[in-house]
């Protein structure tokens, strides 16, 4: 019987087992980015910029040239990479602690300049790698190691909606928020990432794709419950949709 290959690892992913927890969405999002790189045929021309947080080891998982940035600095590092090699395809892969707290200045100004690279922003409302501390995206009332009684807006303010904030700037060509907790949303996220890369290839400026993600370990939930928590808690505060499209 003739065998037909129906599923394989994208060339833009390595075969290294990831360190991500069961139920974490990083693996799905990595795969979507890699599929888009393959589909566009740009793997040999791509430079990825990894950040600090759970996705810090992305430099091992993507099978493209990778640069590891310091905490929050990925958009500035990517600016240097893209300005250094304008013909390369450049993306950053950043979590919410990295992008929305310590790296707020870098993402705002890279977006304001309309830097021509793609930002994949993975928002799981918590600092994962350091063991579950409050992030700028932690929801009001959400319990973390540094908000043990739940996030108190009087003490910590309300969580930042980065897509809405970035969309107020004229530099970005595309700003969207998606999720990957259902098959339909996984497909939408792939399309959004592909669109952001295509806009970069067309020289249209920064594409910003926020993907809502899970952290079962630090949320204290199972894999299935975490996916449901995205629906019940995250999407009401972080609505899905396109916020800017030139």
């Amino acid at each position, binding site marked *: 019987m003739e065998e037909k290959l129906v599923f394989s690892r994208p060339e833009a992913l390595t075969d290294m087992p990831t360190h991500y927890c069961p139920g974490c969405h990083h693996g799905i999002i990595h795969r979507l980015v890699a599929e888009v790189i393959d589909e566009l045929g740009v793997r*040999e021309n791509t430079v990825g910029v990894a950040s600090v947080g759970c996705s810090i080891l992305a430099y091992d998982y993507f099978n*493209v040239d990778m640069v590891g940035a310091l905490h929050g600095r990925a958009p500035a590092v990517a600016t240097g990479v893209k300005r250094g090699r304008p013909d*390369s395809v450049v993306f950053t892969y950043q979590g919410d602690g990295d992008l929305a707290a310590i790296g707020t200045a870098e993402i705002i100004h890279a977006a304001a300049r309309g830097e021509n690279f793609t930002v994949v922003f993975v928002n799981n409302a918590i600092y994962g790698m350091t063991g579950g501390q409050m992030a700028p995206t932690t929801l009001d009332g959400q319990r973390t190691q540094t908000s043990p009684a739940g996030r108190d807006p009087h003490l910590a303010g309300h969580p930042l909606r980065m897509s809405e904030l970035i969309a107020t700037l004229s530099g970005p060509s595309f700003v969207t928020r998606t999720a990957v907790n259902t098959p339909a949303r996984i497909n939408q996220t792939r399309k959004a990432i592909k669109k952001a890369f295509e806009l970069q290839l067309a020289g249209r400026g920064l594409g910003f794709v926020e993907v809502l993600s899970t952290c079962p370990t630090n949320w204290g939930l199972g894999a299935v419950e975490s996916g449901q928590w995205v629906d019940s808690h995250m999407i009401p505060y972080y609505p899905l949709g396109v916020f800017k499209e030139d």
Partner: protein
Amino acid sequence: MSEKILLKGNEACAMGAILAGCRHYFGYPITPQTEIPEYFAKHMPEAGGVFLQAESEIAAISMVYGAAATGRRAMTSSSSPGISLKQETISTLSAGDLPCLIVNVARGGPGLGCIQGAQSDYFQSVKGGGHGDYRLLTLAPNSVQEMMDLTILGFELADKHRNPVLILSDGVVGQMMEPVSVPEPVTSFPEKPWAAVGAKGRPKNIINTLHLNAAVCEERNRELQAKYKRIADAELRYEEIDTQDADLVLVAYGISSRIALTVKNRARAEGLKVGVLRPITLWPFPTEALRRLAERVKGFLAIEQSAGQMVEDVRLAVEGRAPVAFHGRSGGVMIQLDDVEADVRKLLGR
């Protein structure tokens, strides 16, 4: 060599960078170095290069990190407080073996200090301003000509050793004007097969400084230390002037070395046997040269625009073989020739 032109130290530095093939400058305004970004803003476009005014000192050095990772000759410049802000990335550039040039046109500190030139960033430059066991090859120009020449040399040494190079200048050398001979542009550049430019036809390149396994991290440190030894063995630069018969050797770098030379000339005119040792590289430091001199001179006088920083390395080199005196002013106040001369007479019993 062409005929000489009159330049500010900061302009000479920026012009030298373009001659050295630097086409990527990222910076932020701070006095007294701002003529450097201003020069690039004007001249990078005509050189086909990138000038980008970053949102912060941290972003500027991060952009240098990104451009250097793609193999480009990249640089930033700042002055003391701004250089402090860059230190985490300077440590990381060192850990990542990324060649680049960082220029500190130093001013008085600590804190915001003042905008006048000073030499109180010596410790930060050569003892590790950022975290971890790393070394910056540090060059200290004492003239506008050297602001240009050492900038060009800095890019060459950075690429040769895959290490960041620091130019430790100061607000006086940066702001003063002198005639400069302009060399020909650099036309030969090394290959950089390690650069992150897209993995076409080869395994992927990774620029990374994280090692979760401590044994791997230690091995990486061993490699770095071996590199630092190679740099220390190959790149020491200093000059000795009239030290052959000297009873007293003035030790000074940068703008203070100009003062030391004048004091030495005046002393020699009076028959006093005074010499000068000027470190040009601050790391590596001319430890052996000082030790040799310590066997036969009556003493040393370290002169710095600081409360006394390099003098500690002089004392470490001399190891008690001869007395080491210190003359300094801190906070951006200039050392006065007459005051240094008075110290010289006192030390020589005159």
